[in-house]
């Protein structure tokens, strides 16, 4: 197990240096003449009004919830998919029940209009 992940460790360490080196090179090369006008928040030339707070639609959060749930579903389905050919036939029914139960949840959200973006 460890052997297969060794490469990931080495690659991770090397990739970690790429952005660092890039930023250092850029830091050495680039001009540094900051002034307050440059550092203002860019809003197409208009002065920022109020706090940086946008109306966060709860819709985003609902999508995130559905995503989490289906992510976990995938965690259970992947081992099932690997073992599929060796499992007894009736286990197929249980897997379908598993998927359909979750789909019911999605269907509920659908009916309530939670999936709809407006």
């Amino acid at each position, binding site marked *: 197990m460890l052997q297969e992940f060794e490469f990931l460790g080495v690659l991770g360490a090397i990739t970690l240096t790429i952005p660092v080196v890039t930023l250092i090179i850029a830091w050495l090369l680039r001009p540094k003449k900051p002034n307050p006008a440059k550092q203002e928040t860019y809003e197409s030339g208009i002065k920022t009004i109020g706090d940086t707070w946008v109306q966060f639609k709860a819709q985003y959060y609902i999508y995130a*919830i559905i995503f*989490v*749930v289906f992510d*976990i579903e995938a965690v259970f389905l992947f081992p099932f998919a690997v073992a599929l050919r060796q499992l007894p036939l009736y286990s197929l029914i249980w897997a379908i029940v598993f998927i359909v139960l979750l789909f019911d949840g999605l269907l509920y959200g659908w009916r309530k209009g939670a999936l709809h973006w407006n």
Partner: protein
Amino acid sequence: MMPIPLSWWLTVSAALFSIGVYGALSRKNAIGILMGIELVLNAVNINLVAFWRYIAPTDISGQVFAIIVITVAAAEAAVGLAIIIALYRRRQTAVVDDLDLLKN
């Protein structure tokens, strides 16, 4: 064969557990408390996997438990944060000290 003794894992897990409990006890914000709980659940998972590896590596149960703990953690986070969002909408706060009344 095993370069790391079991007690190291358990110690690290205990540390993570304690930090998580501290977070859950001391944070004012409900989201902070929830993050503390996530740490606690992860500490539990380290224990489960370490025991699986060191005591019963041929039995897959340890990993099954760990996956189910992850599932429960995710479900808890989803619903917990939804409750926080709903509360925030009504009361405009996520600080638990201000949320101790059922009605105000």
